[in-house]
């Protein structure tokens, strides 16, 4: 049954769920960065940048990735182009 549900794309495999949960919990373990802190960071980054430059708030992507045993915070912030 589970196999069928998966085949129909309704449920990710338990392996994928395990991997994703582990990766999230390990980010917090290793860096102390919780989802709440990440949200605060996003708001403050937006506030600081907006004072100097016109940014596309909806397009902001703030994510945490792992490279080896190094954790990286990556901010992708699209800028609005100036009207001519």
């Amino acid at each position, binding site marked *: 049954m589970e*196999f069928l549900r*998966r085949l129909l794309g309704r449920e990710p*495999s*338990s*392996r*994928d769920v*395990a*991997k994703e*949960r*582990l*990766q999230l*919990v*390990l980010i917090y*373990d*290793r860096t102390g960065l919780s989802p709440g802190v990440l949200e605060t960071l996003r708001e403050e980054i937006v506030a600081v940048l907006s004072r100097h430059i016109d940014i596309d708030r909806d397009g902001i992507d703030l994510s945490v990735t*792992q490279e*080896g*045993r190094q954790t990286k915070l990556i901010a992708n912030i699209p800028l609005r182009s100036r009207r001519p």
Partner: protein
Amino acid sequence: MSGTVITITSGKGGVGKTTVTANVGTALAMLGHSVVVIDADIGLRNLDLVMGLENRIVYDIVDVVEGRCRLRQALVRDKHLPELHLLPAAQTRDKTAISPRQMAEVCDALRPHFDYILVDSPAGIEQGFQNAIAGADRVIVVTTPEVSAVHDADRIIGLLEAAERGPIHLVLNRIKPDMVRRGDMLTVDDVLHILAVELIGIIPEDEQIIVTTNRGTPIALNPNSPTGRAFQEIARRVRGENVPITPLRDRGLLERLFGFMRSS
């Protein structure tokens, strides 16, 4: 001669530290090396039982540290391999009976006489673990493909890095190829990606581990067992040989069919 001290640890209990210690020690001795395995799990001694040496213990590591016997007198010679020795833990004391400095001294005293000194660490991150890593030149972290075991392995690796103990190698134990194929178990690559340490071996889930442990004869002694061979491969990697990891074989359709017929 100066032997290499390798600590086997995991954080979580029950993932196979003692089994890995007994079997890698056995496999190294089969390759002709002189080996001593130390049970650092004071108060919960089991390495002797897994190796079938429980009836030969006279002294233990606490007797050595407290001066009741000489180090040589506490070493138990293996039943099968003359070059393999066990330094047992005490069963009636606790982890505070020896200090990290004393453990490092015991390791140093053994180095001139053995090629490899394997230290079987207790579970946890407290003093027993600190004792076990005190003399380590290298560390083998054992984990299984389960979230709690991988979580604890990551914590242990973080502590080892902070203590500047290493190099660190990983043994991934109890893999079930059938479950991996169904997408119901973390793969070797998943665990390696998450923990980001070098792999030194993979061991399949195998009922024969229980059978051989019942008998006190490590599975590494059996060259016909794929699990035994997996331990022998780890031993060769430990001594620096470049042995590619043999992928675990999923049972084919026919085998599964026959297996089903046999079990029904």
